[in-house]
């Protein structure tokens, strides 16, 4: 249990440290260290859970089970690699005169604040605290979206703030309804604890929980970026600093989906039906198709990949909604590989746009000629995210497709069509960027591509062979969520 507290305390210390002392030269490196220590703590936590099973803290405030523990490790891992990328990147942005020291201080402090909010969402056992932490994540990142203080970034941040704030208010209404249903079966103070609710799910009033779930799905769905609640997402991703886009895409969206799935488990227990699942399938499929089409009409490279995130979140929501063991297993795997790939892509995109001096895709050209590593990184990342074998995204999308053919065969063509459209949408933009003629005077920049290589290597590994302990873990989580083991 100490490990879980450490996971929360280290980022908290980080907020305070950077807020008061975050203006020195080596701040970027210190940020890396903070994240490295947190990662070590999460690994310790994971080993504990692996050996002893679900951990419930005394007072039941925190719960660590097979579902959230791998997400915690993933969060810490991506937090660390993005921090490694962000240190020289932000330094470069400062040299370009886009940032002042004070804003850099704010950036590092809020980076830790965002990580804290993410860990709190994942570890807490209290559905109310989960909401508070989710809103906290918005509050921590909203000033980072407007970090450059351009009119566009302020507009994006305002949109992000208002849309996510209003959206997530719906989730609080859902949580209040959940609490209302829970106090009717007694136990006032513990009535919002997920573990208690899960054990008593059958006794909860199904009608109230159905209403509650609609509000939760809309609320947390705004954060997942489900169509038609996605408007804030491309803006926030494209206008904020690139490391922020990487963690927003890789972590925030996942954690919002995590919150929805936790609630779905309660609703499924109460209603003994599939109302929640059908809603998620509908929203997921819609997001998937709409985002795939939108990929074709983008001009900004970061907007392109944020639509790709919406598309993939759609696939996951769809798969979790379908709910069988195979689909759930696929969704869990997809969460992992998408986070790894997408954050790697955003890191490369950050370098590419620094290299070309613009985010406009019409003017980024000839990356492979100028700096092969960035060019190949972007190309391989795009191949991976488009779902080509042998990468992990292929495996998970293939499993989702299998599950769809099994349970809802008439939806399988739509899924295939969407994957095809998305592939075309990505490659029509990326192909000239990496292969085209380089503009005159384009020079290589100092870039650290280790995070990208590690991420892509992991995705490749997951595509070729899922290591035993991880497969075991996914199976445990699948058992918890869907009630039976995958094949």
């Amino acid at each position, binding site marked *: 249990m100490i490990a879980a507290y450490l996971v929360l305390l280290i980022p908290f210390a980080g907020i305070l440290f950077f807020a008061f002392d975050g203006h020195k030269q080596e701040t970027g490196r210190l940020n890396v260290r903070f994240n490295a220590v947190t990662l070590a703590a999460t690994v310790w936590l994971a080993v504990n859970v692996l050996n002893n099973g679900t951990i419930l803290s005394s007072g039941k405030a925190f719960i660590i089970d097979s579902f959230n523990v791998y997400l915690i490790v993933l969060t810490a891992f991506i937090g660390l690699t993005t921090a490694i990328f962000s240190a020289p990147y932000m330094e470069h942005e400062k040299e370009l005169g886009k940032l002042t020291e004070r804003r850099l201080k704010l950036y590092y402090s809020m980076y830790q604040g965002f990580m804290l909010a993410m860990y709190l969402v994942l570890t807490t056992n*209290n559905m*109310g*605290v989960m*909401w*508070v*932490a989710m*809103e*906290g994540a918005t*509050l921590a990142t*909203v*000033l980072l979206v*407007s970090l450059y*203080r*351009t*009119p*566009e970034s*302020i*507009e*994006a*941040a*305002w*949109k992000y*703030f*208002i849309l996510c*704030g*209003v959206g997530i*208010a*719906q989730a*609080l*209404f859902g949580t*209040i*309804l959940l*609490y*209302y*249903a829970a*106090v*009717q079966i007694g136990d*006032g*103070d513990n*009535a*919002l604890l997920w573990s208690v609710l899960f054990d008593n799910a059958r006794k909860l*009033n199904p*009608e*109230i929980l*159905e*209403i509650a779930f609609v509000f939760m799905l809309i609320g947390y769905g705004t954060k997942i970026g489900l169509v038609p609640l996605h*408007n804030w997402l*491309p*803006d926030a991703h*494209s*206008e904020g600093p690139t490391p922020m886009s990487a963690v927003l895409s890789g972590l925030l969206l996942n954690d919002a989906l995590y919150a929805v799935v936790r609630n779905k488990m309660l609703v499924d227990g109460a209603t003994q039906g599939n109302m929640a699942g059908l809603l998620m399938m509908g929203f997921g499929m819609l997001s998937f198709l709409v985002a795939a089409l*939108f990929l074709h*009409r*983008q*001009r*900004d490279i970061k907007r392109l990949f944020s639509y790709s995130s919406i598309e993939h979140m759609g696939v996951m929501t769809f798969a979790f909604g379908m709910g069988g063991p195979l689909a759930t297993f696929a969704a869990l795997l997809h969460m992992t590989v998408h986070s790894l790939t997408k954050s790697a892509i955003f890191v490369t995109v950050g370098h590419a746009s620094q290299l070309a001096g613009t985010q406009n895709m019409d003017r980024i050209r000839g990356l492979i000629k100028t700096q092969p590593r960035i060019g190949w990184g972007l190309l391989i990342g795009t191949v991976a995210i488009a779902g080509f074998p042998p990468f992990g995204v292929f495996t998970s999308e293939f499993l989702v497709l299998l599950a769809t053919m099994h349970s809802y065969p008439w939806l399988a063509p739509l899924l295939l069509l969407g994957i095809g459209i998305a592939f075309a949408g990505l490659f029509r933009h990326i192909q000239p960027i990496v292969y085209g003629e380089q503009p005159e005077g384009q020079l290589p920049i100092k870039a650290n591509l280790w995070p990208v290589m590690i991420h892509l290597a992991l995705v490749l590994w997951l595509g070729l062979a899922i290591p035993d302990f991880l497969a075991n873990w996914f199976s445990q989580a699948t058992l918890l969520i869907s009630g039976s083991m995958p094949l």
Partner: protein
Amino acid sequence: MNIEQQDFYTQAILSMAALVGLTSFLMLGQGRLLRLIFVFALQGLLLTLTTTLAAYSLNSPHLYISAMMTLILKVIFIPWMLRRQVVLMNMHRDVEALKNNTAVMLGGAGLMVFSYYVLHPIVQTSSAIMLNALAVSLSVVLLGMLLMISHRQAVAHVVGFMSIENGLFFAAIVATKGMPMVVELGVAFDVLVAAVLFGIFFFHIRTSIDSLDVDRMNRLHEVDQ
């Protein structure tokens, strides 16, 4: 069951629900920012009274803390901050011409009916009183959204945002005697931070577009033009 047959507390809660709903409608049709902020503070005051009443009648002392926090945040701090912005921007004499005011008001009434419709299954588990209270809360939430849609000033958007928060708080008080303390503190903290951030944003928006009219923030598009 008739309303006269209810106990004093229930009657009071119902009247409070009616008044809170009324303030939401008042805000919806208000074009003057200072009056809008005043009505918002009034709604906060009604919430404080409801909470105090609930704390006294239901004998749950932790609600006094919630009442205190509401008073400080929603009645004093946020209205003060918004008022300062309006005066600073010299907007206190402007009247915002609201488009389709009649349609918006009718839409608001429709939303209220819709809230009753959505929450109707709740009657099964408890009294019709609870339905009234929860439906009014939900309609305050929805009316807050409508307020944000129909007004163009950033200040009005913040009022709408915070009034959504008010609706949620009212639901928590009447339906479940408040949330667990840790959640309530967390929510209050989020509201406080959000209010401070809004203040920072007003400053940024003003320096960036020299106005607080959010219709003028239109540089970002879904697809390229």
